[in-house]
């Protein structure tokens, strides 16, 4: 009887492969949050919104580390990671039609651009640091000045301009770096859940949510425990909470458009999607929407945003909620049948490639990178100067 069971199962549900496992939602989450952090840093650097100036530097650094850690997920998801060069060398013919190929250029250009923008922002601080240090530390700090030790007004003005230009180029690039991941999925017409032109926009909207959610948690942590000030800027927390709510509104609008069209007005595919969402109705509604979107939405739009601990809670749940959304989209999309009856299931393995441990390690790398940039870059002094600038102006 046992054998019979096995046999029947295999014949009825042969060769459904789910090529993309847990690494992929994690990758999407990382690039998305990076794009959001970059946009927030551009509020000050490009649009000149003074309010965001003190956190612009740290946001830029977070955008950088998130994007350095993100592609490791992709490499881990490959079955032949040793052939990574093939991606760069061959198949350029497919460039116009393979969104994955666009990643070659985007994933290389974007972190380099952020690095140069951060260098322009922190150059003068590195000069000062180098002057106050000796030996190896001096050489190290000098490296980041790119040999330019000019501290004059004119030189600083030049840095500022460089930051502005790089930031302005960076905005479309940041949007593209995450938008292309949505495009990767949206382009797959075989998958009824992914195939919508809205996918890049849905991804961008939810990315803004997760990125802001992450900053809402990280920035107060840095300010409280790692900076000279040793205190949290509560106004900033409230500002970010409100910003988060606006991003949630954008995200909800996108999802509303997507779901209402694909569940009701689409052709044959709507039945499968309808089934899928009916099956997951309760958890999607209560966790994804009520807990992870509506609750933080209310926090940001009401007086609750003045209570930091409540805002932190909102930040955490949105960040988790968006991760779940990425998971539900990437994995859920692959669970919908295409040639065999019945939904299939995916449970990530605990160890090995593309496993729970792999994703946790990736987070470990992210935290190591955060520590490294916080140690290397004089973010604290810069943040302090911004606050003093604001207070002096008063």
């Amino acid at each position: 009887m046992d054998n019979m069971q096995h046999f029947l199962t295999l014949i009825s549900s042969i060769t459904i492969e789910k090529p993309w496992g847990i690494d992929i939602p994690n990758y999407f989450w990382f690039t998305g949050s990076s794009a959001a952090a970059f946009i927030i840093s551009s509020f000050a650097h490009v649009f000149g919104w003074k309010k965001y100036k003190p956190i612009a530097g740290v946001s830029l650094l977070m955008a950088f580390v998130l994007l350095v850690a993100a592609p490791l997920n992709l490499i881990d998801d490959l079955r032949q990671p040793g052939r990574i060069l093939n991606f760069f060398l061959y198949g350029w013919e497919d460039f116009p039609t393979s969104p994955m190929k666009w990643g070659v250029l985007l994933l290389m250009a974007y972190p380099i651009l952020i690095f140069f923008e951060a260098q322009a922002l922190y150059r003068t601080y590195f000069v000062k640091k180098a002057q106050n240090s000796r030996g190896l530390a001096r050489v190290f700090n000098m490296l980041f000045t790119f040999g330019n030790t000019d501290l004059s007004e004119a030189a600083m003005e030049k840095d500022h301009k460089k930051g502005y230009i790089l930031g302005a180029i960076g905005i479309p690039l940041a949007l593209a770096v995450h938008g292309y991941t949505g495009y990767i999925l949206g382009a797959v017409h075989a998958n009824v859940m992914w195939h919508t032109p809205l996918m890049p926009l849905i991804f961008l909207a939810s990315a803004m949510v997760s990125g802001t959610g992450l900053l809402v948690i990280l920035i107060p942590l840095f300010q409280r425990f790692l900076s000279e000030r040793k205190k949290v800027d509560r106004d900033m927390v409230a500002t970010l909470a409100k910003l988060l709510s606006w991003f949630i509104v954008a995200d909800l609008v996108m999802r509303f458009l997507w779901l209402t069209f694909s569940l009701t007005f689409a052709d044959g595919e709507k039945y499968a999607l309808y089934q899928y969402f009916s099956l997951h109705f309760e958890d999607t509604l209560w966790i994804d929407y009520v807990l992870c979107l509506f609750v933080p939405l209310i926090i940001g739009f009401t007086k609750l945003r003045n209570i930091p601990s409540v805002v932190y809670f909102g930040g955490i749940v949105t960040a988790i909620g968006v991760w779940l959304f990425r998971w539900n989209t990437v994995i859920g999309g692959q669970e919908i049948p295409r040639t065999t009856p019945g939904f299939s299931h995916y449970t990530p393995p605990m160890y090995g490639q593309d496993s729970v441990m792999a994703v946790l390690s990736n987070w470990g790398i992210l935290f190591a990178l955060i520590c490294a940039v916080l140690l290397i870059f004089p973010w604290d002094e810069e943040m302090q100067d911004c606050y003093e600038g604001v207070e002096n102006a008063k």
Partner: protein
Amino acid sequence: MDNQDNSRRSFLKKGFASTAFAMLATTGAEAFSLQIPGRDKKDPKHIGQVGKHFVMVLDLRKCIGCQACTSVCKVENEVPHDQYRTFVTETEMGEFPDVRKGFLPQLCNHCDDPACVPVCPTGATFKREDGIVVVDNEVCWGCGYCISACPYDKRYFNKRTKTADKCNFCAQRVDKGLMPACVETCIGGARVFGDVNDKNSEVYKLIHSFSTSVLKEAQGTHPQTFYISLDSRIEELFSTTQSLDDIVKAEEGFKSEWEKTRAEAHNHG
């Protein structure tokens, strides 16, 4: 002195620049490829039989669901355990006592406008000039984009080669003038293979004398495997979200065991 110095320096500079340029131009041109090395070198295995267009006709009136094709394919192509390039789905249709069995042999459709080819970021998968869609498993880096893109679930990661794999119409045999293994072994004669550009071929005659249909036409991939007598109810099976298997097993309390087997079979190889 100054002048000499300058001219030497400029000589060195120019020399360096031109050498660098020459190096980039020669090695660069060779290293970077619009396609893949095998296609650039016009390897016959990659080019195929120019002028021909291979298709398969599946005459469902003759299929008896014996799975001879399924097993011979595994042998011929060394397909790993639990993985398949072709298989025959077996279904029951109707309501007792008016029931009948339905069989649907499935394989890569070697689509004319394949969904899997244009998305491949390494160029490892491509369409030969004779219409056969192949994967170069020495180039594929195993990203799985083609697997996601195929609307027919006809690609998988080969556990042995760790690259994307699927039916190649037995190109290794066809190039030697043989038939694909499944065609040769099909006892009912349900699988017919040949060059549709040749008006004397059996496939040409079948396609032109019977009405044929393809799977999931709406996907726009223009499949090149044509079915005779395809029951639309079988196709419906593709999008049903619960199978008889599911229901029976759930009822009989096999659910957990079944889910386990299924998870084993489905999670990455």
